């Protein structure tokens, strides 16, 4: 059983955060519409809305720490942040190294490709270059399940989409929800494979053993669910970016 | 005549290679000891041993009757009493002439700045360079630099002076001025050990000549005899080779 980090040594316990007056939250800053910087230079998105709400309910200020997909775990472990709200998919491997709270979003891996040369089946990817970002579920899935696909692994979302646009791979795999969002902005591309691999969940993560913050977060998610926070947030943050293929129920978890 | 310096059975090697072997000699107060010998015979090394710039393996140095304890700390104290001038005009390029001369008196001997500067001026005057206090070494000719280097050593009022081929890298026309100053010092009965290749000069000032070859003292002969009648064949040969 995981040892409870005792309050004295746990810098990220609820009491410690409250005492400090700020919560350090790991977010993406290059992943519209979840966590990104808009044209005005303001940090915004679906994850950010949740993050701000969490801080508000804790009664503390926020300090956002930008992370890439591949350093979300270490940001927690090295105490850079108290909590990760960066599109963090729950997987078995990750469960070993961090503690996930209740999920707040559903997702599965999708694949986008140019409309002119669409990829609609995994078999089309054999021996071809597929673009992914390091440390994402998509990378995980293809590394483990589809060994004959060549992966091009980038550090950030900005880089991966740039690479796709420059035609550096035949397709790009990532969480399907914002692939929908992305193709809406980039109509030359299509989500050729809508869902691949198991359905997965996105949840807040805290450092392994940080029971205090985990419990609090679980309660918070339940509370926010009841208050229809996620639906509202979906409508304001995500809906404008998603195409008609996506419905709220595809993304948010509505069982209250 | 009181004995100022006595060296007994000094041995010095670089690694395995012996450079000085069983060197013994005495210098009395007011005497000029000239050290001669072919290149590589160990003249510079000997001079450097005498003010602790080189450690030696065995042997004893007595200074004013006292045995020298060869620790770095002790040498540092003794060096105030031993002036030394080298072949390369080794003034400190980052200091002007006045500061070059007064650095030792002020920082080592803790003299007041005024005293040190007054004395520096007096000494500069004796070498004809009193106007140069504010200049930097790079603005001086080789001969001038070397005269300043002598003044710098004298400013500490040493009990004796070591000169290692101080004219060797000077232009021929510059040599004379420097040698004149040394000859003057000799006249004023400064005790000196002088390594030189200027045979005429050596002959003129030497009270005694040490002839070194291959790390040994081959002969120690009064100056008046050495140049006309050296005792060893090696010295004879050496003297011949020195003038074409």
């Amino acid at each position, binding site marked *: 059983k995981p040892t409870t980090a005792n309050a004295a040594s746990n810098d990220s316990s609820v009491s410690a955060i409250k005492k400090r007056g700020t919560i350090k939250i790991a977010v993406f800053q290059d992943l519209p519409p979840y966590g990104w910087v808009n044209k005005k230079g303001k940090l915004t998105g679906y994850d950010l809305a949740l993050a701000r709400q969490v801080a508000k309910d804790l009664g503390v200020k926020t300090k956002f720490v930008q992370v890439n*997909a*591949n*350093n979300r*775990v*270490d940001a927690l*472990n090295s105490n850079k942040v108290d909590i990760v709200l960066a599109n963090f998919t729950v997987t078995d*491997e*990750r469960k*070993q*190294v961090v503690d996930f709270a209740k999920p707040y979003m559903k997702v599965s891996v999708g694949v986008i490709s140019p409309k002119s040369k669409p990829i609609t089946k995994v078999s089309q990817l054999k021996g071809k270059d597929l*673009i992914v970002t*390091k*440390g*994402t579920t998509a*990378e*995980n899935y293809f*590394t483990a399940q589809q060994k004959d696909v060549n992966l*091009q*692994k*980038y*550090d950030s979302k900005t*880089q991966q989409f*740039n*690479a796709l*646009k*420059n*035609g*550096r791979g035949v397709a790009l795999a990532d969480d399907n929800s914002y692939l929908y969002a992305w193709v809406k902005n980039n109509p030359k591309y299509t989500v050729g494979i809508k869902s691949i691999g198991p359905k997965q969940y996105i949840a807040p993560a805290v450092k392994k053993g940080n029971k205090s913050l985990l419990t609090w977060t679980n309660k918070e998610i339940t509370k926010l669910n009841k208050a229809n926070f996620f639906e509202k947030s979906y409508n304001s943050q995500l809906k404008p970016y998603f195409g008609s293929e996506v419905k709220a129920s595809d993304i948010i978890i509505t069982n209250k | 005549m009181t004995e100022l310096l006595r060296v007994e059975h000094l041995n010095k090697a670089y690694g395995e290679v012996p450079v000085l072997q069983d060197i013994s000699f005495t210098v009395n107060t007011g005497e000029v000891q000239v050290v001669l010998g072919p290149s590589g015979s160990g003249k510079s090394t000997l001079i450097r041993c005498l003010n602790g710039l080189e450690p030696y393996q065995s042997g004893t140095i007595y200074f004013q009757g006292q045995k020298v304890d060869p620790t770095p700390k002790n040498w540092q104290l003794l060096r105030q009493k031993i002036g030394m001038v080298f072949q390369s005009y080794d003034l400190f390029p980052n200091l002007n002439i006045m500061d070059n001369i007064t650095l030792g008196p002020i920082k080592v001997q803790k003299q007041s700045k005024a005293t040190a500067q007054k004395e520096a001026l007096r000494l500069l005057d004796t070498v004809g360079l009193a106007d140069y206090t504010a200049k930097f070494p790079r603005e001086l000719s080789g001969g001038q630099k070397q005269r300043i280097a002598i003044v710098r050593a004298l400013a500490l009022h040493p009990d004796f002076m070591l000169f290692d081929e101080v004219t060797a890298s000077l232009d021929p026309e510059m040599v004379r001025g420097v040698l004149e100053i040394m000859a003057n010092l000799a006249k004023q009965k400064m005790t000196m050990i002088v390594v030189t290749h200027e045979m005429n000069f050596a002959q003129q000032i030497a009270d005694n000549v040490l002839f070194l070859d291959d790390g040994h003292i081959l002969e120690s002969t009064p100056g008046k005899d050495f140049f006309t009648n050296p005792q060893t064949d090696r010295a004879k040969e050496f003297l011949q080779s020195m003038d074409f």
Partner: protein
Amino acid sequence: MSWQIIQQSLPMFQKGFILTLQMSALGILGAIILGLMCSLCQYFKIPVLKQIVGAYIELSRNTPLLIQLFFIYYGLPGIGLKLSAYTCGIIGLIFLGGSYMAEGFSGGFDGIPNSQIESGKAIGLSQGQLTRYVVFPQGFALSIPALAANIIFLIKETSIFTVIAIPELTNTALDLIGLYYHTNEYLLVLVVGYAIILIPLSIILTWLERRIRYGTFGD
């Protein structure tokens, strides 16, 4: 620290290691050739070329490789020039290294005492013969320490290739960390990987420097 995890990751690291070596070798070779040509342009003061080389050297030395790579890899396709990651990496390394190597060679050529050139002339050597028998052999010997230092520098710079998704050593380590979260283990292997390449090189460099300092190299 788990030995098992390290062992399991070794095949992946091996691939990255080999890629790092390959790309370093190609990039460094290219940089040396480019650098030599540039320094010859400067040494012989070839008009126009000399100015172009001068501008190139300043541009290359005063901008980070990371930006050079970003620009080549993500920027240039915007104006219709698309090169593979591998090509971009090697071009980047040659672009960066060429100027460093050029300065290394120039340092060597400039280090030849003027008296050498003059005594070459005094025995009647032509400019070409002077270059062939005096300037080049001596200049090359003198520039070896600088070239060796540049080689080490360039090998280290390949770690930046990670930003254009080239699976070299650093990229491999960062990827594995993102996948399996054994940060300590993977970082250790990474450091060891670079050490295996760079320590022997650094020892050779020190040795070379010593030989040159005591004037026993090449002459």
